């Protein structure tokens, strides 16, 4: 279902002149690009190009030294991760950050934590609206489970699942938040060919079925080029190309960056 606020080419997120450094090490330097509503936007680059830093800036884990992030038309320099979540930004991690001791179902249910209108503290007493809200949440989560075809592991503790399935559960938890912007940090890392194909299909289907805007980062060019609408290429913290997959593929600087770096 296409969200109400998906208006054609509208810009959902824009980064402008974002720079970030740790101590003396520059992670991002004057990076600017935008993400349009409803598109799949890839941020690629060799290892260490600053892709994860960029995602962490968008998500509020890092605060850039200069530059602004404009999200849904409002510019901001600082945002906490939990505020980002409330604002409709959900994400997954390269090194899966699931609640390993909890079941798949519970993990995905936590994705709906801020989809709650009743007060969180009052909710602790399990009063009032919280019960019927819980039912609605469960219903939505069941749709996510069905969508990702993980019915068979509903009650299984996540720590016991194989890697590929954990990635899927993490995607499920992000989807449960009904995000406006979904950030995927190397969703295909460490997967075999079949798992990669599955993940590609899920990403495309999420984009199509829910109209979710997706920004994903990958260091492996191949897969991403097939599923992305537009691609930003970073190298050593700087943007070196931005355009459709075809344009980017032909860009000499991109070719150099990839040839010059050993990657897996």
């Amino acid at each position, binding site marked *: 279902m296409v969200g109400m606020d998906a208006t054609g080419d509208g810009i959902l997120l824009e980064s402008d002149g974002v720079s970030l450094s740790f101590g003396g090490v520059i992670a991002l330097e004057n990076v600017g690009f935008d993400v349009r509503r409803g598109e799949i936007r890839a941020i690629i680059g060799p290892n260490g190009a600053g892709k994860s830093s960029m995602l962490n800036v968008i998500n509020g884990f890092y605060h850039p030294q200069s530059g602004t992030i404009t999200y849904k038309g409002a510019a901001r320099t600082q945002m906490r991760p939990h505020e980002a979540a409330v604002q409709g930004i959900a994400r997954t991690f390269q090194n899966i950050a699931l609640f390993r001791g909890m079941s798949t179902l519970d993990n995905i249910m936590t994705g709906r934590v801020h989809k709650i209108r009743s007060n969180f503290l009052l909710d602790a007493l399990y009063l009032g609206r919280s019960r019927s809200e819980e039912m609605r949440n469960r219903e939505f989560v069941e749709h996510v489970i069905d969508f990702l075809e993980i*019915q068979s592991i*509903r009650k299984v503790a996540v720590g016991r699942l194989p890697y590929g399935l954990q990635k899927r559960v993490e995607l499920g938890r992000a989807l449960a938040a009904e995000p406006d912007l979904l950030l995927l940090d190397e969703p295909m890392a460490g997967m075999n060919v079949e798992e990669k194909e599955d993940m590609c299909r899920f990403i495309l289907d999420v984009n199509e*079925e829910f109209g979710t805007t997706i920004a994903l980062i990958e260091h492996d060019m191949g897969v991403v080029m097939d599923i992305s609408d537009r691609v930003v290429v970073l190298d050593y913290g700087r943007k070196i190309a931005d355009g459709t997959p075809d344009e980017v593929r032909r860009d000499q600087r991109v070719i150099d960056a990839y040839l010059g770096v050993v990657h897996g």
Partner: protein
Amino acid sequence: MSDLSNLDTFPKLLVDRAQRFADKPAMREKAFGIWQTWTWSDVEREVRAFACGLAARGFRRGDKLAIIGDNRPRLYWAMAAAQSLGGIPVPCYQDAVAEEMFYVLDHAEARFVVAEDQEQVDKVLEIRDRLPTLEEMIFDDSRGLRRYERGHLHDFAEIQNQGREFEQAHPEFFAGEVARGAGEDVAIILYTSGTTGRPKGVVLSHTNVLVAAANGIKRDALKSDDETLAYLPMAWVGDHIFSYGQSYIAGFCVSCPESSATVLADLREIGPTYFFAPPRIYENLLTTVMIRMEDAGTLKRRMFHYFMEVARRSGTRILEGKPVTLTERLRYALGRMLVYAPLKNALGFSRIRLAYTAGEAIGPDIFDFYRSLGVNVKQLYGQTEAAVFITMQPDGEVKSDTVGTPAPDVELKIADSGEVLYRSPGVFQCYYKNPEATRETKTEDGWVHTGDAGYIDEDGHLKIIDRAKDVGKLDDGSLFAPKYLENKLKFFPQIKEAVAFGDGRDAVVALINIDLDAVSSWAERNNVVFSSYQELAARDEVYDLVQHCVEQVNRDLAADPQLAASQIRRFLILHKELDADDGELTRTRKVRRRTVAEKYAALVDALYADQDHVHIETAVSFEDGRTGIVRADVQIRSVAPAAALAEAS
């Protein structure tokens, strides 16, 4: 069960069921974590809407409707809808690749396809250009199909909507179409998966399916409150009979699992009373239990093993109502409380009244395991060409090595060659567009060649021993069934492969491959030192081990007058494992008998000569592609025939 004389087609039966069992559940499916239920009147409504929708789209009598996907209520409804209009459903194996699917769709001249989801739609789209007869495609799950071009691609619900409109305009249409059907009409074409050559389309009439299914119900007294789980391929005749035919006749409820990966969990939740599975499913279930038991605490594990021993001793006898001592009965009752009941519950078998296995031989250990728990597993022998039932084991007459007595209305005879033939109301009409194959299989007067060799034992039970083409004779004219012997040997975990020789010879000999995993762990426990397969295979201790297995097989054979002559007299353990890379096995790990016979001719000759060891050089290919020669001195063992042993004991 109701009178079937006026209800000679499935659509007529459905209309009747919608009144007789209006509010009884007919189907369930787990969707979004909750079991959804449709009553018989719901099902009739759904089928009617879809049938009218098909008609609105131009579906005519005699048209074929291909059905591709996992077991889904809508796919079963599509089957009934096509039949209502005098059309013929053609279910396809959902895991077939596009090319295999092409053969079936093309051969059956399907005009309509109902596919479960994007995966299946993609497959059909891939071959669509080469299918001139194919017109309309309908899908159940729209997920991922949103952006597909919609000209001839429709949502199932959309067709049903069109159907409801169509019905408003033509209120008498559906009833009229159903009434036009007759028992001798073609009900379904089932393509056999075809281990050899192209698949053949088995044409079954409504009467074939109805009578065969009803006879099965009669034999086991199935009732409308039975429950079953539909999880085996819809294209397979078993599913068609158990989940469709028998459900319509008896009126029992069929549940569809949430997904193919959740079958075990769904089994537990539904707790079917009537269950069908090929042997490998029973094996897998048993393996999961065993693994869980190995992880359990010491007390639990001890308890499990103790009570399983009690069950092995007395469980089957108690199930069959045979005399058992009182203390043993008490032990079993205690075991039921502490072990069997929880175990059956974990397996989803706590309500099972009747379970069947068929398709291939089931290991006696596995078979006995379930029966000793009190699960009434029985074997049946059937074929697509017979609408399943040829023989089935009656309650109380269950033996692990026979497949039971003829099903109601089935006549059985054994040809001189040993091949089993049958004749029954379920016998198929013909192979679709293949009169030659039909003539080869079905005689003028209705006898069907099974292709299996077997005989009828003294209790009137059919015993299948081998494929007919593999069966030979010893030089004294007695029966020699190599596969039967080999399977018996392979039921021992220590034996991985066995190849038996004896056709035209005076005695049976065997080449044996040990199972490296099983035997090496045995060797470690018994301090037998070895460094390679070849060394292990040559150990006297291992020979002793295998000899025990062979003697056991011989004892079983001796008890059977037909096969007593084919006891294994001499054997040797091969110095290398049979390998697909060396052409000794097929890629699906079946022994290439002729290749092995040629390659190891020297060994076979030595087995028939009076030697006690033989030297051999064999060319092998290693995993890195190099080839080399393996030289070995192979020991030969003689085994005393068991008739003497049997008398002695």
